[in-house]
């Protein structure tokens, strides 16, 4: 127990610095992922063949391949095509790919769950197709998909720990390097685990709360 407190004093700042990078990675891939996911969600159901095929390609690989494969593809693979990205950029790209693929399915499900009467109503009011999508379908569809998207955000935060394998100095890799200098892997991984849990568990409660709250209105 004493070693844990000593390790917190010694390596706390480094671990928190790592946490900041983990959170930045989560935030950026969520931001880009959400935008792309909306595009893919519309793409999968689009009548335009090229748009539909590209969207399906990205979604199927993003969901079908492990995040670890995409991370390493971006970091170890792309240099073979003379594209060399920093570890943080390649990790952001890879996690954005994974995130957009999963979220596209949640959003597509949400859009499909918008009652047909809403869309017919909008048409009856003479709204254009774009306006129907922008003011009726998308706001309600996102609202239906929100709890699933929030649950996914927690999983994405946890998945940033995989970026350790492509040399991003995030929480996990800080814990590992602190462990190799103090020879106290157990206590450092316990501290790192506690930090992950301290964020993931309340965030999960929040998403469950939102789900219950929204269920009242649907």
């Amino acid at each position, binding site marked *: 127990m004493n070693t844990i407190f000593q390790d917190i004093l010694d390596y706390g700042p480094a671990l928190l610095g790592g946490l900041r990078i983990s959170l930045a990675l989560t935030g950026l891939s969520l931001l880009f992922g959400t935008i792309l996911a909306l595009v893919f969600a519309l793409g999968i159901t689009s009548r335009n063949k090229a748009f539909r095929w590209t969207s399906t390609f990205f979604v199927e690989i993003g969901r*079908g391949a*492990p995040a670890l494969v995409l991370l390493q593809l971006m970091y170890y*693979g792309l240099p*073979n095509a003379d594209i060399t990205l920093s570890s943080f950029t390649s990790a952001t790209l890879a996690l954005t790919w994974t995130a957009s693929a999963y979220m596209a399915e949640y959003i597509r499900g949400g859009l499909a769950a918008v009652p047909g009467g809403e869309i017919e109503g909008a048409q009856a009011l003479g709204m254009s197709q774009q306006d129907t999508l922008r003011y009726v379908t998308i706001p309600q569809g996102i609202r239906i998909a929100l709890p699933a998207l929030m649950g996914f955000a927690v999983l994405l935060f*946890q998945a940033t*720990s995989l970026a350790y394998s492509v040399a991003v100095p995030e929480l996990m890799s800080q814990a590992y390097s602190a462990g190799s200098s103090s020879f106290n892997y157990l206590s450092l991984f*316990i501290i*790192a*685990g506690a930090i992950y849990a301290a964020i993931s568990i309340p965030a*999960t409660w929040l998403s469950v709360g939102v789900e219950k709250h929204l269920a009242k209105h649907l």
Partner: protein
Amino acid sequence: MELLKAIALGLPMTLLVTAVALGIGSIVALPLLAGLRSGKTAVRFLTRAIIDLLRGIPPVVWLFLLFYGISAGSFRLSAFGAGVIGLGVVAGAYLTEIFRGALGGIKAGQWEASEALGLDRFTMWSKVIGPQGLRVAIPGFTTYAIGLLKDSSIVSTIGVAEIVYLTQQSARTSGQGITVYFIAAAVYIMLSMPIGMLSRNLDIKMRKAVAR
């Protein structure tokens, strides 16, 4: 072709890690499920805390904790052991939720009828509730199994020679990083397709077998 062969060598290990972890998870899920359904508030609370903790910490952290952190004298877990135990226990927490949901899907009349017939608890669980719960749990279970197949790639970080580990090696030696990683991605996608189809077939078959 050489590249494909190198990756294919990791395939049995990926399947083995997935299967063993799934087995450990299914066993771990049973006491957790019993804990969640316990009449004692303290037991329920403790079980919930364990499940939240298992799910709240990323699998990599569990694997590293078991692999680098646990040592008693000269005893250390092997990479494979740490990998399947770590993934298995986390899987147990997720499977508990899936099984709990499945039990919730069983009609109240089934419980009442078992009681009215005076069935003892063992008969009730093995002949009435168990088989029906299993059927309801199949779609969730296979979805999780497909997820676990992909998550099994995480054991490569502690040196288990499965698909991603060998892919990384051949990416280094062959200098064709993009190709090997796309082959690896394709292998995972092709692996998950038959599992999904099997699950749908099984679901249809069992739907027919069970009267409503």
